[in-house]
């Protein structure tokens, strides 16, 4: 985040560039801020907020990396990208080699570079950050990853995947989110005929219907799907597995030799408090889907209506809540409050997004928990009642759990409530498939080494296994399952 323009940041970085640095010089190079759209302007458009590093910024930031022998950052990467290696290629100005290095472990760098919670992963372990005793001083690994992916895309320099000769085996993947994209790619490369079934009319899963354009441009997701099509994956939209066809029929009648299920965690949770079905209460999924998938933010053209919003309360503190709050601002809300029952330290959202939300004017009502939603005479939301909380002992998740203070109920005026407290797994496949076991939470039970489900020939990965998790974990699971499927199909 920076108030300086991209041009100024480029000049400043350029001035510090040298052919070589002493260890001391390296350690004192300034962290390169992300060039960003001005908060006052960006709340009036849907364009991407973070604009991406300039060439000199990327070079300078890459030079901050100490290229540690023990590579602590790699341990923090859920898919084990050789981070120092790809960053070293950037310092050598060989972006193609950097891209090839990333591609060994990750299929979606342009996406993960933008949406990974780096501060809890690679950047948490970075020696440079440790040295400064400040995680904000860690090498900006995610931004560099994005730089590499975007540069190569711009130059049309992505390596074309090599595809093995046809095996004669037919497989399908259910869903088109990151887990399924990764699985489809690896299955296709092994020479199998791959069909992807997606329920919605557009592919991409949460990357398309959930995460807004201003954080992840939809053209990037479309590019990944186009790559799959170019490889030979048949993407069939408007196909709801379990209703349009059951898994059993797909395997027994339609001849699929193996199935990967990446159906995500698309079942919005509600709080179960009074007033949740009033007019003006929406799940974040509904609000975001209207805006992102159905393009309802574009009043001029879109036929899907958006509620008229002015004072918006968002319940929850994760990425979904930040996305909903920031979308609400862009749709013209006068006031947007994120209502979260713990304190700032516990906010599960990416730190960068919390920062963006604050810059844009989102209010944070921390240590508050909704107790009911109150209606006017017409059945429309007129406000919420909140209880104040204190932090008590740490709970199972290790976070200090909130304790409501009795009698602290206070009324706050809002006309719209967006419930963003998380998602459970969609039960449809479980309901329509005999033999798939699920946990108490509804996630699929899988073999942790292979991601095979309890039904022979069926694998699963991503949010349907992990519960609402992250893009990188979903991608990693898709690849792990595909590897096991490829072994199974080779037998």
């Amino acid at each position, binding site marked *: 985040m920076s108030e300086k323009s991209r041009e100024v940041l480029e000049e400043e970085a350029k001035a510090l560039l040298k052919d070589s640095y002493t260890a001391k010089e390296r350690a004192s190079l300034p962290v390169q801020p992300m060039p960003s759209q001005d908060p006052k302007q960006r709340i009036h458009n849907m364009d991407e907020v973070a604009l991406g590093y300039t060439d000199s910024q990327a070079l300078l930031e890459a030079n901050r990396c100490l290229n540690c022998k023990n590579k602590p950052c790699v341990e923090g990467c859920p898919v084990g990208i050789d981070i120092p290696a790809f960053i070293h290629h950037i310092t050598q100005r060989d972006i193609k080699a950097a891209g090839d290095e990333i591609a060994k472990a990750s299929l979606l760098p342009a996406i993960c570079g933008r949406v990974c919670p780096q501060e809890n992963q690679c950047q948490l372990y970075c020696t440079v950050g440790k040295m400064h005793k400040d995680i904000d001083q860690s090498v900006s690994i995610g931004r560099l990853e994005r730089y590499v992916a975007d540069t190569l895309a711009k130059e049309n320099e992505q390596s074309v995947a090599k595809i093995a000769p046809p095996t004669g085996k037919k497989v399908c993947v259910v869903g088109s989110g990151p887990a399924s994209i990764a699985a489809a790619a690896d299955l296709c490369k092994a020479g199998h005929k791959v069909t992807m079934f997606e329920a919605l009319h557009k592919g991409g899963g949460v990357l398309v*219907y959930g995460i807004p354009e201003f954080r992840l441009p939809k053209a990037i997701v479309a590019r990944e799907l186009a790559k799959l099509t170019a490889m030979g994956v048949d993407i069939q939209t408007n196909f709801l597995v379990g*209703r349009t066809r059951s898994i059993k029929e797909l395997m027994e009648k339609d001849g699929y030799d193996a199935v990967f299920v990446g159906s995500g965690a698309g079942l919005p949770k*509600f709080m179960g408090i009074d007033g949740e*079905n009033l*007019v003006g209460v*929406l799940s974040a999924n509904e609000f975001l889907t209207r805006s992102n998938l159905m*393009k309802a933010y574009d009043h001029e053209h879109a036929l*899907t209506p958006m509620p008229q919003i002015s004072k918006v309360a968002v319940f929850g503190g994760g990425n979904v809540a930040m996305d909903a709050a920031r979308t609400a601002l862009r749709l013209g809300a006068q006031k947007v409050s994120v209502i979260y029952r713990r304190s700032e330290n516990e906010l599960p959202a990416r730190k960068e997004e919390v920062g963006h939300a604050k810059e844009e004017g989102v209010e944070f009502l921390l240590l508050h928990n909704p107790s009911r939603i109150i209606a006017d005479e017409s059945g429309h939301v007129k406000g919420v009642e909140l209880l104040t909380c204190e932090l008590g002992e740490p709970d199972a998740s290790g976070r200090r759990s909130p304790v409501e203070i009795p009698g602290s109920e206070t009324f706050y005026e809002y006309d719209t409530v967006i419930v963003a407290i998380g998602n459970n797994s969609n039960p449809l496949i479980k309901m329509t498939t005999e033999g798939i076991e699920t946990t108490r939470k509804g996630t699929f039970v899988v073999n942790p080494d292979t991601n095979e489900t309890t039904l022979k020939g069926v694998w699963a990965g991503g949010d349907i296994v992990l519960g609402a998790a992250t893009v990188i974990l979903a991608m990693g699971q898709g690849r792990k399952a595909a590897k096991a499927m490829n072994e199974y199909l080779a037998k």
Partner: protein
Amino acid sequence: MHRIIEKEQLSAEVFRFKVEAPNIARERKAGQFIILQMGGDYNERIPLTIADADPEEGTITLIFQAVGESTHRLALLNVGDSIANLLGPLGKPTHIENFGRCVCVGGGIGVAPLYPIVKALKAAGNQVKVIIGARNKGLIIMEEEMRKAADELIVVTDDGSYGRKALVTEPLKELCSTWAPNLAVAIGPPIMMKFCALATKEFGVKTVVSLNTIMIDGTGMCGGCRVSIDGQTKFVCVDGPEFDGHQVDWNNMLTRLGTYKSQEAMAHHRCHIDLNIEEGKA
């Protein structure tokens, strides 16, 4: 892409399309519905009930009323045109068994989804009496088909321009008291279903209704379709669309249906201008 192979205008604002959709035709059962989107980035997703299907031919029949901008645009399509996106079959099928005596009530466009249910109930060995109603004669649809499928057909109109001048609830109450049906099925405008459920409640006749809430995805992902059933929140697209009419919180459902009224009124106005349909006629 789903080609339209037949188009018929059933009344001033009601259309019947036969559309190629082999996957849906093969799997669908009475009571299920589809979601349609006419391509591009900006079109709405519209839930429509399936009035009939022919698995051999690979077609389904959709009957819809041109009420808003999207359905007006749909009505402008012709034989040979294609619908880009068609998802289904959605929702749980109607629970069919031999209940004995069944009374089926269809209001307006609700007669269309009622038709496959009547046929399925008949096929399961039930005696089926059907009541169909509309505002006026021009809006009565599928009378012939229903007459063939049912043991007895009663037609009513609000204004008496055809059949008996009554609301559907009148013959429904009469049948409840004289014929003691084991099951009632009511499909139509929400307000009609609400009053049918109230009418049968007095007689203790179990009543199934098919709810037509606001929907987006139709897969259980958004919760926009949620209703309160016996105090519990249910998603119409996956838990329904059919529910026990005596357990539906009708007032909440009716209020929620009105969420986008002001926006829709504007859109309706806009589409009348766009499509050159005379205001007040459609």
